[in-house]
């Protein structure tokens, strides 16, 4: 039986319920969100003559919750219009509607008795064979199905989303003993491909996988911080991005999650497990005091940290655990941290830290030995497989490396020896593994990632890889060409991929060379080019440092030449005999955006943040982006349109350096083209889909497009508006004089130069020359140089 989900009902509109409903709406589904009817009216409502029967009252709880969720930050919806896909209702009036729904997801309060009542009611109306799941984080799945029918039990499963549902990729699947295997494999595929999640199969144990290990890690530090005599800022400095974890490290993460939530999970584990780590889940006394005082973290504006205004300045104070008072702490400066930060490779950095001879090394050894022992002891209790635990921590807690990957990085055998000496022995299977000759938990063989399978004592392929292409896995044996900034990798089947790998994937001469080389190579002996990479961001833009150097030296000819090289590279992507597909993700700014805009198709991830942001460094897009906006504008204008308004919309995307907050929003800002470019929610499936699209274009029959010499420009009609608009903003002090200069240069290029006849047709080269000239002229401006310098030195945007 093929299971198709058309409509989803979410029961419970709390923070998670509303967020989950928004994410289902994100991927295009019709959603019904229900909650309880209020029990009583407020005085104001009574005064209005409303009763508990009034429709507006009966849906008040769910409507308010959804409205609050939609306005929350970061935004749960890819576009606010997607909220229209969600209908609200209440359990009394609307639960019967679930008879037409394919998936009912329970997200009510964490109480077994209440959940059981809800399931009893669901059974009255539920369509036979429909999916019924629970988002519970702490109640055993097996208890939730007690007393339910066979069809209910067969189609029931735990589905644990993480907060916030749009952004955190982890999706734990927790079957009961009665869950049909088809349900498990369906959820695995649906969550991965359609919801864009990283799925982890977990056993029905307290806190499942990610929270069990993640909370252990936090609780262990909550205890050891006192033993080691460290401060909260010190611990956070050591347990954040330094070791490839979330920026909010340990204590800040706890504040964000909410201390009440954290304690709830910890208590759940403490009360329901009996293992060697049980004591660590005991709440330390200082934490209990904080709870009693109502210091719950971000939601109560104070927890381990508190923002205060001292002498008119905003300060971030941390709690002194001895005195339980907030104080200012000096910035944490430790030699080994400085040395470690210089190492880009996280694995190498970990080796440095764990072997450090000072107090810092002690800290890391204590933390990691404990973690390694803990996770080794949790198999097979919470999961049979090492990779699932690593997936859980990476996707749910933002760790770059999961615990077993960490262990591989610092050396399994070596560390086990040290752990024994420290009296922290790992589980027996670790010894069995080493004895069998396996030295690592993972290895890559022939472009396939394998994990150490404990029962068979052999390496097995990590399942679920079909339909997922990963550069990391295939790179080692498929690099066709590379330089310092980029590599060309054979994806197989005639498709080659240009992978950026410079710092922040900025685009320099090397990247441009790789793009040109790839197109040449593909025209020679392949079918298509894909441009994608697996860095944190697709590209932060052109290498501003390089431009700055040429400008500061006043090498105007060289600078013009360098800009022409960039324009030539993007034009080469457009004018090539083979299809070029760009597959961006994350930040795709400036030059990175321009590269995508010149591809035949863009297959963007839902979490892609595209923008032409050159204004922020005192420039205009000089890699063909300004030209491209003028070109798209000319193509979009139809007879009878108010073309000056269309001009202003496009102009403002660049003029206000607008960055889209999702792949979908990029269409509204003009960076992506409706009907041509697409958005894919799943990061794991994006590259294989992009490759498929490229091959389809090739199979269909691809011709290099004819060069455009019919680009319609508006001329002085549009430039007049730019003069008026820029002046108004400047007089209104929303823009500086320098902003005004850049704005006028931008207008000049986008309107096609000083032409008096609207809809005059020009070539792309004509516009590219205007773009180049304006770019160089701006580089001659001192204030532009200052803006560039600010970005290079401090990473900050200067508005001078």
């Amino acid at each position: 039986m093929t299971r198709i989900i058309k409509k989803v009902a979410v029961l419970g509109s709390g923070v998670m319920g509303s967020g989950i409903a928004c994410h289902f709406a994100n991927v295009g589904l019709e959603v019904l969100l229900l909650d309880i009817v209020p029990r009583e009216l407020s005085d104001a409502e009574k005064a209005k003559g409303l009763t508990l029967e009034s429709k507006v009252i009966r849906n008040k709880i769910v409507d308010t919750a959804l409205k609050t969720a939609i306005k929350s930050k970061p935004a749960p919806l890819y576009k606010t219009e997607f909220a229209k896909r969600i209908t609200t209702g209440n359990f009394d009036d609307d639960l019967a509607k679930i008879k037409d729904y394919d998936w009912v997801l329970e997200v009510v309060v964490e109480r077994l008795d209440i959940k059981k009542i809800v399931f009893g009611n669901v059974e009255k109306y539920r369509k036979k064979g429909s999916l019924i799941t629970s988002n519970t984080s702490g109640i055993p799945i097996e208890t939730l199905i007690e007393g339910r029918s066979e069809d209910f039990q067969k189609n029931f499963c735990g589905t644990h989303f993480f907060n916030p549902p749009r952004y955190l990729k982890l999706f734990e699947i927790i079957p009961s003993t009665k869950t049909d295997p088809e349900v498990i494999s369906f959820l695995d595929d649906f969550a991965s491909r359609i919801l864009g999640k990283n799925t982890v199969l977990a056993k029905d144990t307290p806190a499942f996988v990610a929270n069990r290990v993640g909370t252990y890690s936090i609780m262990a530090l909550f205890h050891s911080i006192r033993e080691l005599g460290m401060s909260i800022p010190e611990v956070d400095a050591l347990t954040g991005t330094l070791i490839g974890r979330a920026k909010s490290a340990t204590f800040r993460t706890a504040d964000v999650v909410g201390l009440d939530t954290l304690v709830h999970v910890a208590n759940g584990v403490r009360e329901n497990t009996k293992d060697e780590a049980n004591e660590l889940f005991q709440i330390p006394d200082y934490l209990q005091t904080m709870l009693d005082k109502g210091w719950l973290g971000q939601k109560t504006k104070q927890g381990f940290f508190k923002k205060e205004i001292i002498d008119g300045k905003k300060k971030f104070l941390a709690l002194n655990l001895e005195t339980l008072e907030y104080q200012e702490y000096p910035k944490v400066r430790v030699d080994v941290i400085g040395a470690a930060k210089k190492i880009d490779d996280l694995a190498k950095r970990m080796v440095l830290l764990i072997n450090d001879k000072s107090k810092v090394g002690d800290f890391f050894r204590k933390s990691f030995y404990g973690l390694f022992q803990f996770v080794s002891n949790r198999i097979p209790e919470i999961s049979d497989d090492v990779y699932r635990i690593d997936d859980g921590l990476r996707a749910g807690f933002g760790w770059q490396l999961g615990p077993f990957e960490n262990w591989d990085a610092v050396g399994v055998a070596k560390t086990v020896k040290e752990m024994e000496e420290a009296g922290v022995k790992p589980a027996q299977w670790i010894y069995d593994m080493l004895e069998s000759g396996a030295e690592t938990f993972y290895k890559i063989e022939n472009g396939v990632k394998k994990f150490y399978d404990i029962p068979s004592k052999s390496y097995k392929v990590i399942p679920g890889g079909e339909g997922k292409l990963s550069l990391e896995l295939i790179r080692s044996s498929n690099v066709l060409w590379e330089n310092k900034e980029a590599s060309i990798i054979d994806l197989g089947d005639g498709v080659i991929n240009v992978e950026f790998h410079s710092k922040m994937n900025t685009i320099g001469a090397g990247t441009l060379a790789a793009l040109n080389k790839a197109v040449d190579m593909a025209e020679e002996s392949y079918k298509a080019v894909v441009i994608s990479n697996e860095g944190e961001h697709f590209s932060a833009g052109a290498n501003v440092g390089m431009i700055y150097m040429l400008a500061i030296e006043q090498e105007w000819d060289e600078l013009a030449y360098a800009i022409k090289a960039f324009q030539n590279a993007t034009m080469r992507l457009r004018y090539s005999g083979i299809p070029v597909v760009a597959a961006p993700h994350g930040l795709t700014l400036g030059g990175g955006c321009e590269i995508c805009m010149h591809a035949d198709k863009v297959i963007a991830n839902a979490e892609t943040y595209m923008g032409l942001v050159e204004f922020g460094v005192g420039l205009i897009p000089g890699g063909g982006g300004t030209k491209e906006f003028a070109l798209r504008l000319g193509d979009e204008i139809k007879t009878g349109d108010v073309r000056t308004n269309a001009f202003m919309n496009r102009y403002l995307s660049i003029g206000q350096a607008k960055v889209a907050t999702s792949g979908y929003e990029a269409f509204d800002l003009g960076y992506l083209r409706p009907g041509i470019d697409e958005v894919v929610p799943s990061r794991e499936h994006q590259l294989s889909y992009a490759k498929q699209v490229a091959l389809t274009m090739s199979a269909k029959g691809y011709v290099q497009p004819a060069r455009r010499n019919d680009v319609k420009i508006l001329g002085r009609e549009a430039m007049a508006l730019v003069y008026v608009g820029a002046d108004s903003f400047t007089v209104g002090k929303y823009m500086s004089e320098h902003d005004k200069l850049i704005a006028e240069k931008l207008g000049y290029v986008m309107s096609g130069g000083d032409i008096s006849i609207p809809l005059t047709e020009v070539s792309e080269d004509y516009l590219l020359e205007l773009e180049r000239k304006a770019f160089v002229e701006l580089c001659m401006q001192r204030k532009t140089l200052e803006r560039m310098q600010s970005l290079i030195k401090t990473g900050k945007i200067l508005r001078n």
Partner: protein
Amino acid sequence: MEAYIVGGYRSAIGKAPRGVFRFTRPDDIAEKVIRRLLEDFPQLDKERIDDVVVGNAFPEAEQGFNMGRMLSLMSLDTVTVGGSTINRYCASGVEAIAIASAKIKAGLADIIIAGGAETMSMVSMGGWRGVTNYNVSKNNVSWYHGMGLTAEAVANEYNVNREDQDAFALESHNRALSAVKNGHFKEQIVPIEVEQVYVDGNGKRAVKKSIVDADEGPRPSKIEGLARLKPVFAAGGTVTAGNASQMSDGAAFLMVVSEKIVKELNLTPIARLVDYQVAGVDPYKMGIGPMAAIPKELKHAAMKLN
């Protein structure tokens, strides 16, 4: 020959862009006002009316096609009376009355219906296709400054601070509310029926009718509320949505006739336009217009302020 104003009516003033008249065309509102005005003169043969002069600040779209002529056809039930549309922005209605009075005094007409109508909900400031002059935009851009920027310029140059502006606004609201409460506008407002044909929550066509007979703008305000508003035209400015004029929809018309007609039809004049002068100032601080126009007017009329 002297010219006299013998009658006048107005619609209520709705707020733009989301007020009571946002779905009602200005010509439809104006027609009802003109018809009400004519009801006061049953003895007047409409074909004797010489012209209809209508002031409008952005005569395009719903206010296009020479609204003056269209209103003449729509309101007078005859094709024999002309109509024109004139524009002096916010002074368009007053200008229409001046034109009417001048023509009558010059002997070129005896009876003119003069006034104005505007929808800022349907046609916002700048119109649908604002195309500025290239050379002016480049060399004299302040000639195009909007009223928000000119207000800020006046406030800055003449030291009119935020508190005084808010206090003035509060007083203005209070005076308007008091006038409304005392029924001062009751006689002059023509109730306008507004009809909305829409699709309701059940997907069915529905019709809603209501009568608009009260000005939407005046509201009970507090100085603290006004003080909380943020400036909307300039960063760090003093002009806010609370102390700036509202945007409005509405219509108002007067009957202007010659002395001869007053006698013939036994009419009672209400007022007379004694004099009318126009002056210009640098557009960037447009708001100080009265500083040029009032002295000129007084000189021309040989009158003193008191």
